């Protein structure tokens, strides 16, 4: 990615501050999208995304270029999101599962129309990996390769998740259409 090359060059020249200023707008949507796909909660995803960038600000001068910049950032985002998920699960006991479901179901990204809300409910009901793949794929018209890099999974696995998710959603939409008719 050309933007990454410029950022890495700045880091190597000891200009981590400038590198960070370029990195944040370049990765904001991707970091937020990845956190959101894991956490299913806008506020929590925003919190995690902020934490990721603070960590990046601290770690950027030590970035040695061994891993690709994007791979490194996605790994930090996944780990930070997973820590946040663990903390949330510790806070909410098993009896609060209904509360958690409620919080998550209210966290639709931009579901303002009733049919979008129905679609969101169907996406929310997908298995974790399928939901994550769909969210990341459709957030920014990404390639399957990029989604695979973000999720830390092989490309073919992501293709399978996407295929199954699309099939489930199409079935659910058809069923909903029949019920509505």
């Amino acid at each position: 990615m050309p933007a990454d090359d410029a950022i890495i060059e700045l880091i190597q020249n000891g200009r981590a501050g400038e590198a960070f200023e370029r990195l944040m707008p370049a990765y904001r949507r991707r970091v937020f999208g990845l956190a959101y796909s894991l956490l299913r909660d806008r506020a929590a995803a925003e919190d995690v995304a902020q934490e990721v960038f603070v960590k990046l600000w601290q770690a950027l001068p030590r970035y040695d270029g061994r891993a690709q910049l994007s791979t490194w950032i996605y790994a930090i985002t996944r780990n930070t999101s997973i820590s946040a998920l663990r903390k949330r699960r510790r806070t909410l006991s098993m009896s609060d599962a209904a509360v958690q479901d409620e919080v998550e179901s209210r966290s639709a990204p931009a579901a303002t129309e009733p049919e979008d809300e129905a679609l969101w409910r169907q996406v929310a009901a997908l298995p974790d990996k399928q939901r994550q793949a769909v969210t990341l794929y459709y957030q920014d018209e990404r390639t399957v390769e990029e989604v695979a890099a973000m999720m830390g999974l092989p490309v073919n696995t992501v293709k399978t998740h996407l295929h199954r998710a699309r099939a489930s959603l199409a079935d659910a939409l058809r069923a909903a259409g029949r019920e509505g008719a």
Partner: protein
Amino acid sequence: MNPDDRLRRLFGNLDAEPGFEERVMQRVAMLATAPREDLQVQYERRRALLRRRLKREAWMNGITALGLGACAGALLWRYASEIRWLATHYTPLIDPNLLAVGTVAALGALVWLLIKRAQSGR
């Protein structure tokens, strides 16, 4: 509208709230101006907590070992006469080579377990 377009519409606007970058820069600025003394205090506190945890674990390990030793001692004392009887009657029946091989194998297994334990605790 087909499902692909609907999903694009659903997730296309997925982004952080406006002012995200300013909020991150505020957190970064707070971190950058945090006095070094605070960091030192945090570091010392974490070290003290770790030291206390390790000490507690060492105590627990010691108590466990003592407990197991006491149990083994009590069993030996309780069944001393039976053990003595078994030793006098059955020891001559055991093949000395088999006994040697068994002892070496048991010692080897013990050493292997200790090495694995030391490696995992690193």
